[in-house]
């Protein structure tokens, strides 16, 4: 099937299984229970898991394989979103032209940015990409938003208005859709105390993720991918072996830019809005964190990292002092207040602090990221029977 090796096939099937059943798996707690706030199985959050998974899988093709650390990939995310919203404004809410333009424009943009930034390597490359992305942000935020030529709609963000042409809309839906199938449509399945939500938008994103993941596996196992790995371990040797590393890194850069453009297009397809803040350096940094946290250079790592970060962002930022008080209400008042006072800094708006700590723990104790942790556990469990671990095949059994 799909000309993949056995382990890779297994990996793809496992990822497909978890992605397609996510609305059930991520909703383990009954809707009315106190634990329901830890559920992640609602459309908005699941869409973000998958979209940022695509973003990180693409980023990993550049960073994980070649070792070139870009701090500017959010620029492509933003470009993809803008391109998609323009398609909605000009043609219709059908996401197909939007997705195509997102990927194409992000690819062209990546070609230009890569051509310039890849003149340097190491920290200089990183700084160049950061500068490029910040410039793009500034341009989107102000320069391209003036009355005579308004491409980005500046601070407000680009969105679809009633007087937009939408030449192909006719009497089609007034929200994003795939040939009439609306993204926001959700089928809710009530079983006992549980309510599972199956959302069209999520499944569209999930299919894109599976295709994107499959392409990433092919690239990892291809001669092209082998050269990218060789660039990471010894670029000098590669050059003296008769290979020109420049086009290899440029292609990797463009491919990862197209993945980011796809993710940006999907974000806009779920919610037809594009703002410049999507291009900001914090967004670029986030995909770096996702990739490293999950395991740079591994196949599933970036997906796990994206799920992990988006989950904790969502859960921890929702917890407030009254929730904390309710958890510790059984303790003596003084102790309760003390604990809540400490935890207060790690939740709500302080969730970045928790994320920072988790990130530090992972980097210090699991240099290979979550995949490394999973592999260690797998090896430890399977040691007597199977000394040869199935690379990342063991993974993916964790969240998302």
């Amino acid at each position: 099937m799909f000309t993949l090796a056995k382990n890779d096939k297994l990996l793809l099937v496992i990822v497909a299984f978890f992605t397609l059943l996510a609305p059930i798996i991520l909703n383990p707690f009954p809707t009315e229970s106190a634990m329901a706030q830890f559920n992640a199985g609602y459309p908005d959050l699941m869409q973000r898991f998958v979209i940022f998974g695509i973003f990180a899988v693409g980023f990993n093709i550049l960073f994980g394989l070649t070792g070139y650390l870009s701090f500017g990939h959010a620029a492509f995310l933003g470009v993809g979103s803008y391109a998609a919203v323009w398609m909605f404004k000009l043609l219709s809410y059908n996401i197909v032209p939007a997705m195509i333009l997102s990927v194409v424009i992000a690819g062209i943009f990546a070609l230009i940015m890569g051509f310039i930034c890849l003149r340097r390597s190491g920290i200089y490359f990183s700084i160049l990409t950061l500068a490029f992305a910040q410039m793009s942000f500034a341009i989107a935020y102000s320069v391209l938003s003036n009355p005579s030529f308004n491409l980005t709609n500046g601070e407000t963000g680009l969105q679809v208005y009633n007087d937009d042409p939408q030449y192909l809309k006719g009497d089609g839906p007034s929200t994003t859709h795939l040939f009439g199938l609306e993204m926001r449509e959700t089928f809710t399945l009530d079983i006992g105390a549980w309510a599972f939500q199956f959302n069209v938008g999520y499944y569209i994103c999930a299919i894109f993720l599976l295709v994107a993941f499959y392409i990433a596996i092919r690239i990892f196992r291809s001669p092209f991918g082998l050269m990218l790995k060789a660039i990471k371990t010894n670029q000098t040797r590669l050059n003296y072996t008769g290979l020109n590393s420049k086009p290899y890194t440029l292609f990797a850069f463009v491919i990862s830019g197209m993945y980011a453009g796809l993710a940006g297009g999907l974000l806009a397809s779920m919610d037809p809005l594009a703002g410049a803040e999507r291009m900001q350096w914090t967004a670029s940094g986030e995909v770096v964190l996702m990739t490293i946290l999950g395991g740079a250079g591994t196949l599933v790592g970036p997906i796990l990292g994206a799920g992990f970060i988006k989950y904790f962002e969502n859960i921890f930022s929702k917890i407030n002092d009254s929730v904390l008080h309710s958890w510790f209400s059984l303790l003596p008042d003084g102790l309760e207040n003390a604990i809540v006072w400490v935890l207060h800094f790690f939740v709500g708006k302080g969730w970045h602090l928790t994320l920072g700590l988790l990130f530090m723990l992972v980097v210090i104790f699991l240099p290979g990221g979550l995949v490394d942790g999973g592999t260690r556990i797998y090896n430890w469990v399977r040691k007597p029977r199977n000394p040869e671990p199935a690379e990342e095949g063991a993974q993916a059994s964790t969240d998302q």
Partner: protein
Amino acid sequence: MGILEVSNVNKNFGGLKALHNVNLDIEEGTIHAIIGPNGAGKSTLLNCFIGKLVPDTGTVNFNGQSLLGIKPHQINQAGVSRVFQTPEIFMDLTVLDNVMISCFAKRDGAFSFNAWASVAQQTDIREKAEKMLEDVNMADKSKMLSGSLSRGDKRRLEMAMCLSQDPKLLLLDEPTAGMARADTNNTIELLADIHEKTKITKVVIEHDMHVVFSLAQKISVLAQGTVIAEDLPENIKGNAKVQEAYLGGAH
């Protein structure tokens, strides 16, 4: 006319004359040794052949084509491969992958966007690489990470990588440095054996006299950036200048 012609090459590092009017003529199909004390400029000279350094003045012609000002990968594609003094290999990849990369470079050229094929299914490349590893007695190590090999094995791997490309000119920078006696002898045998079979022109930089006299058809002696003698092995031993600069020295 030789396959590699070096004339009047000069290279300065700051005030240091690393190479001074170096002339060299490497005849096709021979093993040509370059010897000389540490810091004589031997590695620097090889660096000028592979595009790592550009001489300040002088010319380096390979098969009549200048090697100056073209990129390292172009020089390799023209048929020049080098084994470095400190092994340059892909430490994070397996031994087999290392050799396969060389084979890909030979088959597909400096760049090919081969992103949809599967490495595992490139049987011609794989068989060639496996055969090459057998030739250097490393077939049993093909699945190991190359970074975990012993120093001698790393060097042998690098040699396999270069040989798998069927180069027209093979440059070997102290191929036995840091090896135990037994390993050194193995390597000499291997080189002699390969030379017997392929007749690839080789420039060997060596420290070990034993190696040099058992392999080379011609020897150039470099001291302080200058070629002080060039002759057949049997004549070099008796050369007074050489004895003073090299054999009679600290070595």
